[in-house]
């Protein structure tokens, strides 16, 4: 059995970030690994804090800041965590253990980020953060690449599946073709 914590998943899903949970659940269920929601981010195998509107951050920003100590522990230990888009921007501006962001004009475009651990990571960014598209410490990831990033980056997905007690994704060939087409399209 595996578990996840998602911070106000109905509101922190501006751009389909909760789709990452769908992807993990899809492959974990193939592997007969139960993937249940828990309310404690410290005990969860996987934590996601999705991108949110300014209205949601105004409402839940204080609550998100209260989670910072638990998230810092996960960061130090490199535990599987995805903090995405505006939530990452918000947290990084408030805590010292995340790289202090430099802000610039909002840029909205597809990006490919070369990483040591997971190869090229592709996604769409819509953020005013400069040069912080994808940072990680172990399996703790902060990214401005929102949406279902795990669906489009199979190596990163495998790493998160392993962190959730599963094994590498067993893609249907047809689905993997679609993923490759999407990645190619973004890269070019």
């Amino acid at each position: 059995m595996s578990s996840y914590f998602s911070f106000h998943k109905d509101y922190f899903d501006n751009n389909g970030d909760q789709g990452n949970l769908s992807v993990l659940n899809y492959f974990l269920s193939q592997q007969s690994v139960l993937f249940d929601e828990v309310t404690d981010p410290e005990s969860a195998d996987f934590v996601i804090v999705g991108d949110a509107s300014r209205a949601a951050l105004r409402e839940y920003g204080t609550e998100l800041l209260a989670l910072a100590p638990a998230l810092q522990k996960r960061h130090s230990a490199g535990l599987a965590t995805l903090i995405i888009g505006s939530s990452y921007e918000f947290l990084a501006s408030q805590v010292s253990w995340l790289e202090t962001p430099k802000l610039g004009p909002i840029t909205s475009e597809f990006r490919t980020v070369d990483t040591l651990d997971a190869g090229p990571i592709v996604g769409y960014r819509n953020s005013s953060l400069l040069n912080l598209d994808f940072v990680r410490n172990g399996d703790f990831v902060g990214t401005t690449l929102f949406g279902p990033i795990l669906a489009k980056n199979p190596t990163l997905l495998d790493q998160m599946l392993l962190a959730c007690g599963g094994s590498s994704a067993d893609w249907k060939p047809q689905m993997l073709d679609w993923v490759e087409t999407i990645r190619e399209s973004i890269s070019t």
Partner: protein
Amino acid sequence: MRAILAVSIGKLLRFLVRLVRPGGGSALPGVVANKLDPQLLSNALSSLDLGLVVVSGSAGKSSTTSYLVNLLEAHGLRVFTNSSTANIRQGLVAAVLNQGNWRGRLDSDIAVLEFDEGHGAVLAGELDVRLAVLTNVLSDQLDRFNDPDDVIEMLSKIGSAAKVVVLNTNDKNLAQLQFKAPVVGFGLSSELATISNPVYALNFGSHPVIANFAEAGTDCVVLNSEGKTKFLTTGLPDHQALNLAAAVAALHQLIEPSTSTIAHVLKELKPVFARNEKVKISGVDVTIRLVQNPTSFQLNLDELRSDNTPLLLMAGRDIHDPSWLWTVDFSKLDRVDIVGGFNAHELALRLAVAGIEVGAVIQDANSAADNFLALQGTGHTVLFSADAMRRVRRHWGLAK
């Protein structure tokens, strides 16, 4: 003189472009004419006796504009309007080129224009706006607008430029806005509010109460005027009733309408194209539905019945970042026969992860449409985004 030059060159360009691409090419002539005479649009509109009405918001612009135009025309007025694909500056200038004379003057009494939220916020400040209709704020086109807060600000600017604001009171993003001009409300009747639940952009603030002049009811529009209530029946589906209420509310601020004329129009109105439109293509009956954002995709999916097969879903090039497809709940579906359009692969992946069988993925919109028509079945249904819709409608001969 400047206007004549701009219009002449614009019309010539339009003619030349249409030689190459029949039915298309409104952008370039509009851009050039606007460059030659930046006042062309404002001069054309300022000469209209009954002024300019603008309709803006995340969704419902085209339908509301169309219904208001129908209502005004039924009252004998000549209305200048734009198509939904021409709701930014160059498109509006192109509409002047198309419908105006050589001096750019319009033979119309009133203009009713659909405004893109972003472009409209700039345009409204340059124009003399008599009335603005604000439909709603959805979490939509975030790759363009970044955050619904920005859309609220844009609509606030559009409303602030108007002498009367007609707005959707159910959307508290709009109800919270402060205008110097009088505000007239439209919304859902209490009856329809219990069965219809539009999802507006997230807002945790209070919901100011604004009286509704017109309300969308089940098969009717309810008018609350001078202490009296009138019921006007309509054959339009419930989800169009709110747009209709907006149009009826706006109409009453523009002219003194005839109740019997409104009643007649409401009975005869058909949904704007591609809103659950029924067409026959090569002998096959097809239902086509436009989906433009998570809300409209969900709404259209929710309305599908089990006999809506074969099913074609298309995500075109207009969906710049298709991530939002992952916010749509597709669990109602078991199978999609063909997934098409520029973003077909992302849509197919999203469906597959949700456990939905995908028959085929065909990125080319025309091929997808052809293969779809060849499928067996009696309930051919297409859900497509605007870009895919334009391509398929042209391919099927439904548009030039």
